């Protein structure tokens, strides 16, 4: 039955003529072109950074940091922190958001929203330090802090996304004999996709920033470069770490924007 509902909701190429499909491809190409600006800008910034660092006379401390292997490892760590945290956030926040938006559970939504607001209001650095005192250091602790911090936007947008679906659509769906589950998966969630994706994008960008703090719990990432740069007064190191972090944030934001445009159900304005 769920499969039925899902196929009912699918874009169904069978129903679109060849012209329709061509129009679809054309639309996708336009979307890609419109999104070309950000990666070009990121490329230019990275190029300038490279030329600048290349032209500097680096001392032995700087050389230990400003080399391909070291930076590659930090970037990978940073992306890993971000991606894993985001996956965990998705796994927690979207089901929770759905649950809280069910008519019978709507009374819990202020409680859940309050708690996750709290999560975001707590200074992330303070939270990480507290967690470290209690549980020690490492990747898992960093992950915990990141997740607490990033859950809110996704949770809130899932709730809002589902609640903003026109009740008439839900009534029509129920009136035609869709089960509650079919209504959820083929109407409510489908129509909430743009709002949920917007929340996810916010969460991702936030996480990239907050992940620089992972260095304080010995979980690596570009925070290592920034903190080292500050502590050892090595500005090229500090600036390189910061610019790389910014570039990752922009890249992630760009990917999110692309996903929003490509995954938005067709037929929505």
């Amino acid at each position, binding site marked *: 039955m769920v499969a*039925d509902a899902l196929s009912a909701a699918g874009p*169904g190429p069978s129903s679109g003529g060849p012209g329709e499909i061509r129009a679809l491809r054309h639309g996708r190409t336009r979307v890609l072109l419109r999104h070309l600006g950000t990666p070009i800008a990121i490329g230019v910034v990275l190029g300038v950074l490279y030329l600048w660092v290349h032209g500097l006379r680096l001392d032995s401390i700087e050389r230990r940091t400003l080399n391909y292997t070291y930076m590659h490892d930090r970037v990978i760590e940073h992306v890993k922190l971000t991606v894993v945290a985001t996956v965990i956030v998705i796994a927690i926040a979207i089901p929770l958001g759905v649950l809280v938006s069910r008519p019978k559970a709507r009374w819990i939504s202020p409680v859940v929203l309050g708690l996750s607001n709290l999560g975001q209001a707590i200074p992330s650095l303070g939270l990480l330090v507290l967690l470290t005192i209690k549980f020690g250091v490492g990747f898992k602790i960093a992950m915990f802090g990141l997740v607490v911090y990033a859950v809110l936007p996704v949770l809130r947008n899932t709730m809002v996304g589902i609640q903003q679906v026109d009740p008439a659509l839900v009534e029509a769906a129920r*009136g035609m004999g869709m089960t509650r589950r079919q209504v959820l998966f083929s109407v409510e969630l489908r129509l909430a996709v743009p709002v949920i994706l917007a929340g996810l994008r916010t969460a991702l960008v936030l996480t990239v920033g907050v992940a620089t703090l992972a260095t304080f719990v010995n979980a690596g990432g570009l925070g290592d470069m920034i903190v080292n740069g500050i502590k050892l007064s090595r500005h090229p190191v500090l600036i390189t770490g910061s610019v790389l972090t910014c570039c990752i944030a922009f890249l992630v934001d760009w990917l999110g924007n692309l996903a929003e445009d490509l995954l938005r159900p067709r037929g929505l304005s």
Partner: protein
Amino acid sequence: MFDSSDGGVRIELRELTKRYPGQSAPAVDAISLDVPAGELVVFVGPSGCGKTTTMKMVNRLIEPTSGGVSIGGEDVLRMRPDDLRRHVGYVIQQIGLFPHLTIAQNIAVVPKLLGWSKTKITDRVDELLGLVGLDAGQFRSRYPRQLSGGQQQRVGVARALAADPPVMLMDEPFGATDPITRERLQNEFLRLQRELRKTIIFVTHDFEEAIRLGDRIAVLREGSHIAQYDRPARILGAPADDYVAGFIGTASTLKRLALITVEDAFPADGDPAPAGLPEVDAGATLREALDAMVAHGTEEVAAVSGDTRHRLTYHDVCQAIHRDGQDQEVEPSGR
């Protein structure tokens, strides 16, 4: 599910009651009423009188507190609600087309739930689009927002008819459209219904719409109590009480004229019409005939049907309206 080899099936409401917790008076208070197979019954009443609640208990979008509903002799309360609803057409005022699905996919929702084959669904979608007057090739792959309100409501009707349910529930389906579109939709819908003979419960607060569309009208008051349940002409001719009379408003005789056709009014042994009289179509209503008389300052018109021209006089019109008030038997349905 329902045996409906031929048009609609009978709907029976028995002491149907809905009581919401914390409210002293029931929203719907023991309504009993029969909707004969193939007829369109309009529930008309002011907002909050319980007409929509009553209708939604038929497909169990609202669960009755007590009482029963049967469709085609089968007890609705014993069915699985989702199965029941797949066999009862449902049209709402907001239409509720899914914006992320194409017109074809919207119409295909119930057939897909029922597991029809792809080819059967495609054929049915095209057939239905034709039925509601939309070109299948043009509209099939469009999205709802690309359609006008009137076109969307046609799709809404097509979607409700998709699995050919014997019974339809319609909640102010034309309420949100402008007057011109509404009248056109009403006429198209009447033409469709004459062909399909579904059993329909139609909810509206617009009495004119009730007269125009209903085979019977149930005038409801607070708590879904039936003030009068009868044929439109009988309600106009003999309102049960002041409440019903208030609903009809003024000029009820003129409204009744709109229910009688010209060909039902001229005498069987009548004369052929002389030349020079204003002409009306034999299928037009007496209201239109009277309109022609007043407009031309005559007391007679020529009723034209093919090659024959009958004379219809003002006197015939008066006779017809009085006859109509008397010879309609009161049928023992409702209370």
